[in-house]
């Protein structure tokens, strides 16, 4: 199925190439694990969400020919450096540690990190309050790094997907989870989330670990791709497309 898509779009690109030379073909890597409301597959197998729409808008504005490519989140940076994909657009925060390996575009959203826990549990989003508790985080995220750095007196469990961490807060196996505020707002409004959990507040900011917003990951040296993506992001912020898409999903401004 996917192969056919790639082939078809490849042929289309080749056909277009003759006429409108310059439409760069890019494979955009998205984590294969659902991350609502930013990116998740729906029941007909298509990807949807805020970030997917932003991606389409950026690609259209920058006249890029983008092919969405799901990749395991856990291996998304090696996939980029190994050239299986050309761009990461998967809610990846810009951090110093990652910048040693890859480059980033300008940030396209920025939200705080929050702690979600069982309603009956009286905790604050601080290391002291979470001491002795079990905190779940998604692997390879800023939240994992943060939890391992600050919540030294808590037991840290590392999950493959945020959804699984949420599920274990719901089942009661873990006491709390740390994740992005928007994704968590979506979870606590969902049927299961509303039954069990609430946001306990955002954690103390640490720029070095939590980074300065979410950007598109690009291989070092691919400056033309970065330029193109930056141009696209600037363009959709300018002409109102960005706000339009955001308003469809969120009641707050997340552009940071």
């Amino acid at each position, binding site marked *: 199925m996917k*192969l056919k898509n790639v082939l078809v779009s490849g042929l289309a690109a080749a056909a277009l190439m003759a006429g409108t030379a310059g439409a760069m073909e890019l494979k955009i890597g998205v984590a294969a694990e659902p991350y609502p409301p930013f990116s998740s597959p729906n*029941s*007909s*197998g298509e990807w949807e969400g805020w970030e997917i729409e932003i991606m389409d808008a950026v690609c259209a504005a920058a006249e890029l020919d983008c092919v969405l490519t*799901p990749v*395991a989140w856990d291996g998304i940076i*090696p996939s980029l450096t190994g050239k*299986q994909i050309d761009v990461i657009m998967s809610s990846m925060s810009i951090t110093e540690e990652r910048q040693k390996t890859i480059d980033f575009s300008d940030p396209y959203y920025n939200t705080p990190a929050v702690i979600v826990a069982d309603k009956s549990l009286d905790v604050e989003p601080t290391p002291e309050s979470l001491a002795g508790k079990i905190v779940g985080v998604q692997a390879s995220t800023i939240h994992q790094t943060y939890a391992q750095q600050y919540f030294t007196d808590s037991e840290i469990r590392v999950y493959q997907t945020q959804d699984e961490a949420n*599920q274990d807060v719901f089942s009661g196996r873990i006491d709390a989870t740390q994740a992005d505020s928007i994704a968590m707002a979506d979870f606590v409004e969902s049927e*299961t989330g509303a039954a069990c959990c609430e946001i306990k507040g955002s954690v103390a900011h640490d720029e070095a670990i939590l980074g300065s917003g979410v950007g598109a990951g690009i291989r070092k040296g691919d400056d033309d791709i970065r330029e193109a993506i930056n141009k696209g992001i600037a363009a959709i912020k300018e002409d109102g497309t960005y706000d339009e898409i955001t308003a469809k999903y969120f009641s707050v401004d997340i552009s940071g």
Partner: protein
Amino acid sequence: METLLQLFGLTESAQLLSLSEPGWGANLLRGLANSLQIALGAFGFGLVIGLFGACGKLYGGPVTRDLLAIYTTVVRAVPELVLILILFFVGTDLINKASEALGGGPVEISGVAAGIWVLGIVQGAYSTEILRGAIQAVPPGQIEAARSFGMSPTLIMRRVTIPAMMSFAVPGLANLWLIATKDTALLAVVGFSELTLETRQAASSTRAYFTFFLAAGFLYLMVTLLSGVVFKYVENWARKGQPKLRGAG
């Protein structure tokens, strides 16, 4: 039908699994098709490696034999999950490097092709051993007889060795095919949209973990059972004209 579902409180599960829009049944089936495609490809690729590997191990020079021994030992001692990760990253890296050396750009590698390559290498090690054992089990007298008739080595291979070894190889290969179908599940960990990953996506989107994992388990089980029936036929066909095994089963 509907009253029956209501009776067991399964209306909700049936809705989740339905093939049309709000249900995720079509996703599971699409995943199953991908899984089978990868499993078939990997099994075939593995068989090709296995045939060369077995011949190399039996008739090759000492270096070939040692290298093949290293290959089969390493693959059979390292967990498939680890091999899949290594081969997945190494494989695409190598292909891209090779294409760059030849002056081309990065090559488009579809998930299915990468999955077939990764699992095929793993399957190749096992089928090498199975086919080697099967070739060795062919009574030497049959091959000697063929040789004394003046048959050429390729003709002996085609007319005598391969048909005679089939009956020894089929049970092992049947088992290997089942391993191939089940190993495709491991590709979920590197993000291929095969049955297990589709199941996981459906389960976490709907939070109906039990329903979807059970449904996927049922699909895998059907594949296993159907394969069992098919391989029984193949085995009977391969055993054609041979005396019945004593106390079979």
